[in-house]
C-alpha cells in the first residue's frame, strides 16, 4: 500500500490509506494513514453498519487537510476478532448413510448456501475450482488426502488444492451467514467451519496428512487459516 501511495502521489493524486497492521503503517510512511484496530478482513470495521463505515471514511478524509506528513492517526474504536467463540450455526442431520459424513453435511447445507447467495444478489466466493454443484466432489477429494493419498491421487496440484480449500470454506461460510440472524463477529464463522463441522475436520486432517507426508509448507499451511491449524 505504501508503494501505491507513493506512485499515486507522484502522479498528482492525493491518497489516504486505511491500516489494519499498525507496525506496517509505521514502517511504510505513506503520507496519510488511518489505523483501525479492526479484524483483519474488515478494514471498514463493521459489515452492515453504513454509519460506522462512513465515519471511518470521514476520519480518513480529514487527514487530507494535514500538511505534517507522513501522518498516522488511530480510529478511536477497537474491534477484536472472536476466533475462540465459534458461531452458533445449526448443522443438518445425517441424511444419506451411503456417502461420507462431510459430503452428507455439505449437501444438507445447500439450501442455506442458496439463500445467502440470493441475499447477496448472486455474489459468492465459490467458483475458483468448482461451483456449488461441485463442492461435494471437492470434499471427497479432501477425504482422499485426509486418508493419506497424495495430491495427484486426489486430483490436485499445488495451486488447485488451495483454490479448492477456499471454495469449500466459502461455501460453508456463506451457508453459515444464512443460518445466523446477524453477521457474526470476525472469525466466528471461520471457527464454526473448522472446529465444528465434518468438512472442516476433513480439511484440517488433509493438511495434517500432507504435512506428515513432507509436502511443501506452502501447500498445507495455506489450506486453512493459521489459527485453525491443530494436530489430530
Amino acid at each position: 500500500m505504501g508503494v501505491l501511495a507513493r506512485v499515486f502521489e507522484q502522479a498528482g493524486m492525493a491518497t489516504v490509506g486505511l491500516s489494519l497492521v499498525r507496525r506496517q503503517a509505521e514502517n511504510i510512511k505513506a503520507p496519510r494513514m488511518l489505523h483501525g484496530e479492526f479484524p483483519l478482513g474488515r478494514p471498514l470495521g463493521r459489515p452492515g453498519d453504513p454509519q460506522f463505515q462512513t465515519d471511518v471514511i470521514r476520519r480518513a478524509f480529514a487527514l487530507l487537510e494535514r500538511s505534517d506528513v507522513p501522518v498516522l492517526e488511530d480510529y478511536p474504536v477497537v474491534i477484536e476478532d472472536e476466533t475462540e467463540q465459534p458461531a452458533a450455526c445449526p448443522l443438518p442431520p445425517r441424511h444419506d448413510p451411503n456417502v461420507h459424513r462431510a459430503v452428507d453435511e455439505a449437501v444438507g447445507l445447500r439450501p442455506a448456501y442458496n439463500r445467502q447467495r440470493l441475499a447477496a444478489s448472486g455474489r459468492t466466493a465459490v467458483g475458483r475450482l468448482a461451483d456449488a454443484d461441485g463442492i461435494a466432489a471437492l470434499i471427497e477429494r479432501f477425504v482422499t488426502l485426509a486418508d493419506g493419498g497424495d495430491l495427484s491421487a486426489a486430483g490436485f496440484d499445488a495451486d488447485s488444492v488451495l483454490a479448492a480449500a477456499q471454495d469449500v470454506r466459502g461455501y460453508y461460510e456463506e451457508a453459515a451467514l444464512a443460518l445466523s440472524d446477524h453477521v457474526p463477529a470476525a472469525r466466528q464463522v471461520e471457527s464454526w467451519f473448522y472446529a465444528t463441522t465434518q468438512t472442516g475436520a476433513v480439511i484440517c486432517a488433509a493438511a495434517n496428512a500432507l504435512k506428515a507426508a513432507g509436502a511443501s509448507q506452502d501447500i498445507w499451511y495455506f489450506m486453512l487459516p493459521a489459527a485453525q491449524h491443530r494436530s489430530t
Partner: protein
Amino acid sequence: MSADAAIRARIGDIPTPQFLTTPVTSIGALSAARVAIVTTAGLRRGGDIDLWSRTDGSFTVLPGDARDVQLSHFSPNFDRSGFAADLNVVYPIDRLAEMAAAGEIGSVANAHLSFMGAQTDATFSTILLDSGPAAARVLLDDGVDVVLLTPI
C-alpha cells in the same frame, strides 16, 4: 492472544520498501474532489475469481457500477465472512456514492482498482515501476483527485 494479534505480531515488522522522501499532493475542497478506491484485497469480478498468486503485481479494474466483486486474495489468514455479508466493509463503494450524493465529496470515479497485498520485495519493484504507474494513468484519465486505499 487473538488470531489477529498473532498475525499482526508475525507480519508487523516484515521489511517494506524504504524511501528518503514522502511525495505528497494537496487537493482543494474535498467537496469538489473525484474519489477512487484502490484496494489491496485482491478483488476480482464474479466469474474471474482464480486465486491471485503471491508474486502477481498486476491490477484489475472494477467498474463503478459493479457489485459482483469477490475476494481472490491467496491468503486464508483473515476473516472472509464480513466481506461475504457486506462488500463495503472492504470496498466501500456504496458509502462513497452516498457521500457524493450528500455533497461531501465531488464525485465517485467510474473505475476503481484492485491489487493483491502481502507482496514480496521483487513485486514491489513491478508495482513501483510498471503496474503502479499504469494504474495511476487509469485513474488520471478518469479525472481522479483522491485515492482511498483499503487493505484486507
